[in-house]
């Protein structure tokens, strides 16, 4: 009986020429081994070094030292609030700009969205470099001010404070929110917007009741990606060159390269990895739920 059923059932398994599950596992081995050598093994060494102080032996003393230090706490706080504020700024600005490009299109809107793509392929430190010329002590904005008022110095001197980093991060990361949003908007049926409009809904209400619910998954995915990228941002902070703006990646760099304190650097690195991998895991779950 079972043989008869088996004969009727289509033959299970793959057609000849496609890998079997066991050989498929074998094929997955070489890239995984490569990744293990160049990435997982180094990461494991960082964790090992973080519990091996220079004096020898195994202890959690490096963790106790670093976690108790004021510099670390301040860097942690700066990193977190800068990342949260930048993400919020990127979400608001990205949503507003994408809304205009998608629903109030103007001649050249396509060029603008292509410009956004190009913007993504430039390194982040360019923004800080540019801001020096715009808001620096002898830059465009201060030059305009001194020319207009005749004052000796302009009022803009926020570049070397956390606010300069915040402005640079919002500028650089907003396109990362705009791209998934524009993709989501292109799939939104414009008839919904038209119908809502013809039923008498005004623009703010359409945005709130029709567009925002459709955009939420893309906002969540883009926002959590930007949060992780901001937590790990290094180039912008390095180029700002301010002594009082230290984030966790800057602390890792400073301890390892400038102070040669490798156990300390490894401790900060482990903390930084835990925070950002945790958040990135959350991002993957959110974006998979959202189907993005």
């Amino acid at each position: 009986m079972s043989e008869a059923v088996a004969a009727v059932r289509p033959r299970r398994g793959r057609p000849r020429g496609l890998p079997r599950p066991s050989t498929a596992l074998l094929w997955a081995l070489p890239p995984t081994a490569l990744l293990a050598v160049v990435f997982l093994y180094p990461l494991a060494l960082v964790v090992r070094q973080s519990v091996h102080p220079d004096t020898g032996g195994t202890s959690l003393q490096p963790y106790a030292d670093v976690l108790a230090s004021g510099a670390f706490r301040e860097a942690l706080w700066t990193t977190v609030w800068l990342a949260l504020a930048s993400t919020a700024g990127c979400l608001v600005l990205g949503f507003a700009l994408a809304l205009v490009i998608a629903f109030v299109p103007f001649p050249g809107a396509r060029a603008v969205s292509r410009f956004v793509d190009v913007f993504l392929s430039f390194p982040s430190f360019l923004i800080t470099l540019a801001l020096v010329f715009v808001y620096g002590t002898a830059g465009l904005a201060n030059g305009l001010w001194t020319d207009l008022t005749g004052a000796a110095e302009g009022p803009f001197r926020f570049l070397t404070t956390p606010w300069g980093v915040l402005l640079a991060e919002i500028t650089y990361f907003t396109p990362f929110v705009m791209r998934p949003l524009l993709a989501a908007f292109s799939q939104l049926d414009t008839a919904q917007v038209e119908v809502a409009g013809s039923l008498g809904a005004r623009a703010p209400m359409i945005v709130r009741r029709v567009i925002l619910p459709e955009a939420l998954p893309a906002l969540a995915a883009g926002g959590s990606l930007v949060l992780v990228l901001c937590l790990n941002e290094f180039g912008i902070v390095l180029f700002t060159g301010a002594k009082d703006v230290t984030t966790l990646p800057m602390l890792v760099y400073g301890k390892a390269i400038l102070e040669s304190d490798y156990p300390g650097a490894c401790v900060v690195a482990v903390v930084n990895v835990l925070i950002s991998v945790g958040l990135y895991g959350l991002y993957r779950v959110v974006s998979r739920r959202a189907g993005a």
Partner: protein
Amino acid sequence: MLVHSRRARRAVWAVFLVLFLPLFALPLLVVLAASFATHWSGVLPSGPTGAHYRAATHGEALQALTTSLVTASTASVLALAAGTWAALAAAALKRRYRRVLDALFVLPVAVPSVVVGLATLVAFSQPPFLLNGTRWIVIAAHTVLVTAFAHQSVAAAAARLDPAYAQAAASLGARPARVLWTVQLPLLLPSLTAAAGLCFALSMGELSATMMLYPPDWTPLPVLVYAATDRGALFTGSAVAVVLMTATLLVLLAVSRIRTKASYR
């Protein structure tokens, strides 16, 4: 159309321009303007000169440009090979294994690149892998950083790939290598070139891990930009940055031409 009245639309556009131009167009314009200037003490830069470009395309800077190009191309090719292999191998796996492999290959995105630099430095400064002080330590770190993006892009395309093509070829007697070479890879070509462009651009602009690793005789362009601005040579730094952007854009343009050719096939 969300906004119907002509005046309201004009107002929305005005707000858009007021936000968009200073934030996104101005930074690129000022870097470009500064690269041709010798002073910037008023509204506009002054003292037009081409000397910064002479500095940015000769000697140390020219060497940094070739360093960056070699590093980025090597890292992109290695990352594409490893990422595509992993993505295709994962596509043939059972769901449980596939998710593990995908998670492993995506992990470098979540790990801060400074930490990737530190880890590479720690691991390759001791036996059995002694790479510290050579160009290979920079290339290895760049490869790790961009492999995740190559893998993600190819894995997404491989998941959308209709298995019927590969099955049809296999049922006609094609060996797996031939199925891969004549059916699967050509179908994946658009996503492969997109991934190549992304990897190249990321590697060209990579600063965080590079700052931890670079040996004196292998200095990529971003490090040179930082070195110039750090010693106060902002205008030369801008010229080097413009060279960096132009090189990246030219390569991206060339890659996108391959892509359009592939999608017309």
